[in-house]
Structure formats: C-alpha cells, structure tokens
C-alpha cells in the first residue's frame, strides 16, 4: 500500500514539475525559438503547443520502450530520427486538416525537430525511466510549454490588436474606443521584450518563495 502511495506521489511530482518547478521555458530556458516565433496570436500558439505535446508524447514512449537496446554513441542520432518521424506526421496532419494554420506556422512546425525540450526530455527522462513515468513527464512538460506559449501569446495579442482568439474584446480607437493598438507587440521587438519581462517577473516570484 505504501509502495503504491509513493508511486502515485512520484507521478504527481513528475507531472507538476513540468508545470512550474521545471517549466521548460521559464525555468530551463529551453525551446526559445518557437516560443518567440509563434506567439503573435493565441491560435497559432495553441496549435504549436498541441503539436509539441503530440511529438513529445510519442517520442518519449518510443525512446522509453527502446531504451535498453540503445548504444550510447548512437543514442542522440536515434532520438533525432524518432523525433523527425513524428514531426513529419504532425506536419502532414496539419497540412491536410488545417491548411491555413499550417501556412501561418510555416517552417516552425518542422523546426520542432531541433526543439531542445524534446531531445532534453528523451535524454534526461525517457532513456532512464519506465513507460508510465515517461508518459506523465511528457504530458507535464508539454502542457507546461503550451500554457507558457498561451500566456505569452495572449499578452501580445491583446496589446497588439485588442483581441483574444481573434475576438475583439477592447474597442479600438479607430472604432470610437480608447485603445490604440500597439503594433510593435506583434513584431519581433514585442516578442523579445515581453519574454524578457515575464522571465524577470518569474525570477522575482520564484526568488521570494525560495
């Protein structure tokens, strides 16, 4: 019974680690490129997050299953090939069912291959742990990544267009409201500065707790 409890506690800990304590973007500074590139609006950010969850989950499962067969010096190559295969699947899926979104995300979907989060989880977690822990870790990290993207994207979308999910929530000055859209926010400048300030805030909050 106690063994069972300890197991459950470990699963929860793994799941929660991805959400805050080891949040891939805020705490580990991994996967910055897509974080900056696709967060001009919430919809592409959410799509990107879902793709990453899918690829992370599948690659963690495969790596965890074949972890005993791997030779150390071929490890990274096998990880990369596994990831590339699943990214191709995700990319073809997007192209077939949401072509508009696929066009908007452009080369950032295939760039998931070199997203450090996925290879980092394969190396740190999946190649050392069993199937259950790997799946939970992938879910925690993936959801943590997606939430981060969404937070960043909603800040940028509201400030640059006054809308959320493309639904207008603040009236623009051109339509008689008070809000003047902040065009710089949808450009690279906005991405870098918003992420910088959020990281600062996270450091401050985390520093106080510790």
């Amino acid at each position, binding site marked *: 019974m106690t063994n069972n409890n300890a197991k459950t506690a470990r699963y929860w800990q793994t799941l929660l680690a991805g959400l805050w304590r080891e949040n891939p973007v805020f705490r580990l500074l991994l996967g910055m490129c897509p974080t900056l590139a696709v967060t001009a609006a919430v919809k592409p950010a959410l799509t990107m997050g879902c793709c990453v969850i899918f690829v992370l989950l599948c690659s963690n499962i495969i790596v965890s299953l074949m972890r005993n067969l791997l030779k150390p010096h071929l490890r990274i190559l096998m990880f990369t090939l596994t990831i590339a295969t699943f990214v191709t699947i995700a990319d073809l899926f997007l192209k077939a069912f949401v072509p508009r979104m696929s066009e908007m995300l452009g080369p950032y979907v295939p760039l998931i291959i070199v997203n450090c989060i996925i290879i980092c989880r394969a190396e740190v977690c999946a190649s050392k742990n069993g199937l259950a822990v790997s799946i939970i870790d992938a879910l925690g990290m993936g959801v943590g990544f997606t939430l981060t993207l969404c937070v960043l994207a909603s800040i940028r979308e509201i400030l640059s267009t006054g809308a959320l999910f493309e639904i207008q929530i603040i009236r623009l000055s051109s339509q008689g409201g008070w809000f003047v859209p902040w065009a710089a926010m949808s450009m690279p400048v906005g991405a870098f500065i918003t992420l910088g300030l959020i*990281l600062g805030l996270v450091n401050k909050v985390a520093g106080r707790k510790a």
Partner: protein
Amino acid sequence: MDTLSILLMGFISIVVVNNLVFTKFLGICPYLGVSGRIDMAFGMGMAVTFVVTLSGTMTWMIDNWILMKLGLEVTRYVCFILVIAGAVQLVEMYLRKFFPSLYESFGIFLPLITTNCAILGLCLFIDLWGIHSLLEAVVLSFGAGIGFTMAICIMAGIRENLDLADVPDCLKGAPITLITAGLLAMAFMGFAGMIR
C-alpha cells in the same frame, strides 16, 4: 537583373533585412548561451557559418536533385537532419585532424551546432522561398551564417559592457539579454523594406 546583382541583393537581404536571429527567431539558444564573451561568440559564429554553408548547399542538392525527382518529399525532414548531423560530424573530424588548435578552441560548441535551429531553419526557408539555382542557395546559406555571426558578436560586445551596469537582480542573466535583443531587433527593423 543580371545574376551578380541578384546574388548581391540576396546576400544583403539575408544578412541585415531578414537576419535569422532578429526577424526569424532562429538560433536563440546559442545566442543566449554563448554571447557572454566576444571571442567565444566569434568562434561560435564562424563554426555556424561553416556548417550552415555546407549543409545549406547539400540539402538544396539533395532536395532538388534526388528527393523531388523521386517524389520523396515526405522524407525531407529526416534527410535534412541527417545531412546536418553528418556535416557537423565531418567538420569535427576534419578539424581534429588538420587544425587541432582550432578544434580545441571550439570545444563543446561543435556538437551543439547540430541542434542549432538556425541551420535546419535556413534549409527549410531556402525550400520555402523557392530558390531555383544552386549558386543562389550557396550565397544565401553563407549570408545566413555571416548574419548570425554579426548578431552574436554585437550582442557579446553589449553584454561585456552590461556586466558593469546596475541591472535589477531579477532581470540579471537571460531576461536582460532578451530585452537587449528586443532593442537590437527594433534597430534592425530600420532595414525592413530596403530589399524585399
């Protein structure tokens, strides 16, 4: 336009107007990681330039001459990543054999280049922009490397001075680097619209 001016325009465009770091957000990880000192930043930039030129050219050749002929575009990503990993491995072996001192100074950066998104990103962008001549692909790949080197060296120069500045505690390290990068990106926006 004759070929030379197309190539020149392409080169300037990829170095300043469409700089991979500031407008496409590629290669941010090494950009934040190794921009602490200017000599290391320059070494990283040179290594990236070399690998990106090699792999950009090779992926263009494989893509246009083999994959498209055989209708195997589905395997594009797997092929690209294999080419890049191979190119990095090749550069590493070559340097270790013929320029051991240079190899020593690159150290850990060389294997890290495989997962530098600037390289895979450039190969994908060349495909996306529909570049039709080999020469143009070579020039663009080389220009991308130069652009990355320039960006990382500017950043390293600023960060060396930033060490002397009084930055709030919570912004030290990555956050202030990102904010600086934002300001640099704003400066580089001034080039937008110059070409394409």
